[in-house]
């Protein structure tokens, strides 16, 4: 028999799934824009939508807590909801930041974008895994995500070193550095989302 709060919990779940979908597409679009040199105006729209959804998730979580006094797994789910929706919201925000880099720097056709694109693909894989781990509450999959973060971190630091050493075109290396920074942040959030998924199931925050 469904409980009173199940309606609220189901609504939160669908909103989060929607945010997962939306944020994945936003990041993909921004990377597309970078690698093809095109403009993708709908990224802004998606980012705004994600922000609105995040606020709604936050409000609804508070309402469920105030009205239904949830405990145990329900309570953990609500705490995780707010953290995870923040993560998806940040995905969208960074996607927007990436497109803004493109606006600022203009034409990057002559740059070697392969490094960034490769890192971007790994990042997108982390995004996809974090969304799926949440959707299916798959703790196993969630545990595989944080190690992937290290790879992204290394790539970012490599690139920064290269830029410091002054090799290559300044415009190319700077834009690459900025985008890698955003990708690195996205990867961090994917890790956080994975930790939240683990928390819902086990009630334990995994220690770093």
């Amino acid at each position, binding site marked *: 028999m469904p409980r009173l709060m199940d309606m609220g919990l189901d609504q939160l779940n669908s909103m989060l799934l929607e945010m997962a979908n939306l944020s994945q597409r936003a990041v993909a679009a921004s990377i597309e824009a970078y690698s093809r040199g095109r403009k993708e105006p709908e990224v802004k729209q998606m980012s705004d939508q994600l922000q609105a959804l995040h606020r709604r998730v936050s409000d609804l979580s508070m309402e469920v807590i105030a009205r239904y006094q949830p405990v*145990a797994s329900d309570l953990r789910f609500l705490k995780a909801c707010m953290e995870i929706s923040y993560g998806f919201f940040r995905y969208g925000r960074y996607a927007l930041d990436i497109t803004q880099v493109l606006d600022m720097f203009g034409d990057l056709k002559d740059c070697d974008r392969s490094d960034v694109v490769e890192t971007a693909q790994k990042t997108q894989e982390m995004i996809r895994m974090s969304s799926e781990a949440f959707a299916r509450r798959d703790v196993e999959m969630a545990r595989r995500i944080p190690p992937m973060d290290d790879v992204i971190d290394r790539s970012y630091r490599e690139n920064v070193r290269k830029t410091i050493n002054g090799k290559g075109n300044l415009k190319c290396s700077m834009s690459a550095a900025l985008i890698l920074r955003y990708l690195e942040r996205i990867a961090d959030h994917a890790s956080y989302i994975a930790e939240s998924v683990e928390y819902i199931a086990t*009630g334990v925050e995994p220690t770093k």
Partner: protein
Amino acid sequence: MAEVSKPSSLNGVQPKFETKDLKAGFGSTWVLKGIDMKIPPNRVTAVMGPSGCGKTTFVRCLNRLHELTPGAVVEGEALLDGEDIYDRNADPVAVRRRIGMVFQKPNPFPTMSIYHNVVAGLTLNGERDKKKLDHAAEHSLRGAYLWDEVKDKLTNSGASLSGGQQQRLCIARALAVEPEVILMDEPCSALDPTATAKIEELITQLKKDYTIIIVTHNLQQASRVADYTGFFYLGKLVEFDETATLFENPKEELTERYITGKFG
């Protein structure tokens, strides 16, 4: 039978009350099917569970009230500070003087004034010294957060108070006998939210001087008031832990299902 896990915060703490394979029932039906529980001193321990799980029977065994019902049977041990209250040589009346009880529906003695209600446990046991009685009355009524409201009408009938005040009067009456343990059987279930809040606040103050065991079917009350919570189901203790842990991350599937309302 799997052992109920012990909260780590109680390692090395001498329990105030400890039951060993405590069984109780009526006639040939066992309601309690062997309870092993350690109740820490100067803390509030809640006993909760669905109707019929044996929580009230358990608490009534702790002050030997259960055996007063015709046909009642009890087996096993209940150790108060290490001494078995069900020992062959134990005097039930003496046991009950060390353990106070507050009931679900407030039950002040209707023929007695407020003053006489509070000191009934003393006067009916022979205490005549007026000074001692006055002192006990004031001390207990203060302890029950009731002194200011009744100090000018101590001679009024006990039944002239509101429900919440009557319950505090009953608490004062229990305190006057200077027990070590106070048992409470759903003390707020007949009261409105304001009265309930006052009594819950009182309970958290009382634990400084007494060990408190409270039966409640109200999960939120247990989570507000209790330091430790035991979950009973069908006569067995399913889980016993610090309240925060039990309510955020219970170890037993049964506990999780009960507190999230997924039972039945």
